[in-house]
């Protein structure tokens, strides 16, 4: 019986990684849910918007590095982030002008916009690969650890090490700041309130003199910022590979739908529900159990519900359960 070691192992392998991943998913899902709430379609290109934003951020990071600019101990990518956001905002605004606005003016069904976004997804996909390539890119140049596993062990005398990577801390801190800023914007500013009004009741918003094109433009800019930040944090935490961002689309949509599409609070909750489920279901609890039960009770094989290759099945399963039993999501979104 070694309670402390069990907790440390759980923190190290489940709680900390899942929190960082959850924050990344939450930021991604916020973008999806905002677009859904205001433009009224599911934007399948969001994963590739994240990839594009991250790619530009990486390019600017490299540029800054070659100029000798550094904000050590923080990664240079944070400094490059505003450039990535600006480029991504320009790209999505251009896309809106070239693609989505046409269907909006025609008052097309949402499903047509969804299909258009699939086309946009493939194009963005290609642009990202043209710009930066398909390989795996590590671009985190900051200090790696806030808490080092070996130092933790020597300092506490525990058998189990605890590692807290700086990217995980940066992810959580950034996510908290971004979410705070977003809610402040939506709840306190004139433009933010007009976006909520537009999402609530489009016709009445028009009757109140709210300019729909302005609301749409601001929404795209915010979605681009959220996508770039989420993508860059994910890339710093793990690595950048265009294909991985495309695959993020599933957990992100699952998060947005679990929380209730169109509901920002739901997107955040959904992000953490998905990340904790994914990590917990694919984690081998043998080590944790070994600390808690008498020695010979520990099973020989892994105590793992699914192997890590099946992590996408977790998002899918949650998505299906929610759609079957509570289609509007935990926080009652707009989908019904």
């Amino acid at each position, binding site marked *: 019986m070694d309670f402390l070691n069990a907790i440390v192992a759980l923190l190290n392998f489940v709680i900390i990684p899942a929190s960082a991943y959850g924050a990344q998913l939450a930021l991604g899902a916020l973008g999806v849910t905002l677009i859904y709430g205001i433009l009224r379609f599911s934007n399948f290109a969001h994963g590739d918007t994240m990839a594009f934003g991250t790619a530009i951020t990486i390019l600017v990071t490299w540029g800054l590095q070659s100029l000798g600019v550094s904000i050590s101990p923080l990664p240079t990518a944070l400094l490059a982030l505003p450039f990535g956001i600006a480029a991504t905002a320009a790209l999505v605004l251009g896309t809106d002008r070239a693609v989505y606005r046409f269907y909006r003016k025609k008052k097309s069904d949402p499903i047509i916009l969804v299909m258009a976004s699939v086309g946009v997804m493939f194009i963005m996909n290609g642009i990202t690969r043209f710009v930066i390539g398909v390989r795996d890119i590590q671009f985190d140049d900051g200090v790696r650890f806030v808490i080092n596993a070996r130092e933790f062990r020597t300092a506490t005398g525990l058998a189990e090490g605890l590692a807290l990577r700086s990217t995980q801390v940066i992810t959580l801190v950034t996510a908290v700041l971004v979410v705070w800023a977003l809610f402040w914007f939506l709840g306190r500013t004139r433009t933010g309130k007009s976006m909520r009004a537009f999402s609530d009741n489009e016709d009445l*918003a028009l009757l109140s003199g709210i300019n729909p094109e302005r609301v749409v433009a601001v929404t795209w800019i915010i979605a681009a910022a959220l996508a770039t930040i989420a993508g860059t944090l994910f890339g710093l935490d793990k690595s950048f590979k265009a294909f991985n961002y495309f695959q993020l689309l599933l957990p992100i949509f699952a998060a947005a739908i679990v929380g209730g599409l169109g509901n920002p609070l739901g997107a955040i909750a959904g992000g953490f529900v998905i990340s904790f489920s994914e990590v917990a279901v694919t984690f081998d609890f043998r080590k944790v159990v070994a600390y808690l039960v008498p020695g010979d009770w520990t099973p020989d094989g892994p105590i793992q519900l699914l192997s890590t290759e099946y992590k996408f099945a977790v998002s899918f399963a949650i998505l299906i359960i929610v759609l079957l039993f509570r289609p509007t999501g935990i926080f009652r979104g707009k989908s019904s």
Partner: protein
Amino acid sequence: MSFLEAANMTGGYGAADILHSCTLRVEKGQIAVIVGPNGAGKSTAMKAVFGMLKLRGGHVMLEGEDITQLSPQARVAKGMAFVPQTSNVFPSMSVEENLEMGAFLRREGVAETMEQVYALFPILRDKRLQAAGELSGGQRQQVAVGRALMTEPKLLMLDEPTAGVSPIVMDELFDRIIEVARTGISILMVEQNARQALSIADMGYVLVQGSNRYTDTGEALLADPDVRRTFLGG
């Protein structure tokens, strides 16, 4: 010339016309009520006045200015406010935010107008931080009218403001509408509760199949035996 003059309006949503040379007039600070059987084109006439319907004939003049070609949004800027029959509030936003959105185009004097709305509908002040979607039907109608008043309209158009509210709330709403008219705002209203509506109306329009059947003061229409027999149930 009347404050609002919508003359000889002809048009509909598709190929077939719903309105046939329909004429509506509202004087400054007066209440005009449109009544008539189901499908008479009452709401359609209102929408035509507000520019939500393309007219094939006729014109709409506000304060002597021809606004026939203006979009609904442009008409809001000209001083018209419209309260739709349903989904007329922002459900997830607080009462206060609903009112703020009504004043979206205004930069000054918003607080004073909001005070006036709260004075007119005191219950809204108590509920100002509550989401409009959580309010009762009658309170929601008050929010809807309040939101419209926040645009500082000269003409307030109400599409069945008392639909689905209890008789007590209905009387209360009618009282408030009279108060609004006393401040100099003209009111054009479609109503199912014809008898009560005509009793507060300066002018009444009985529409049948998209055209004017009877037009007179509210009092005269209530006294008219033909109108009573055919539309007011005796």
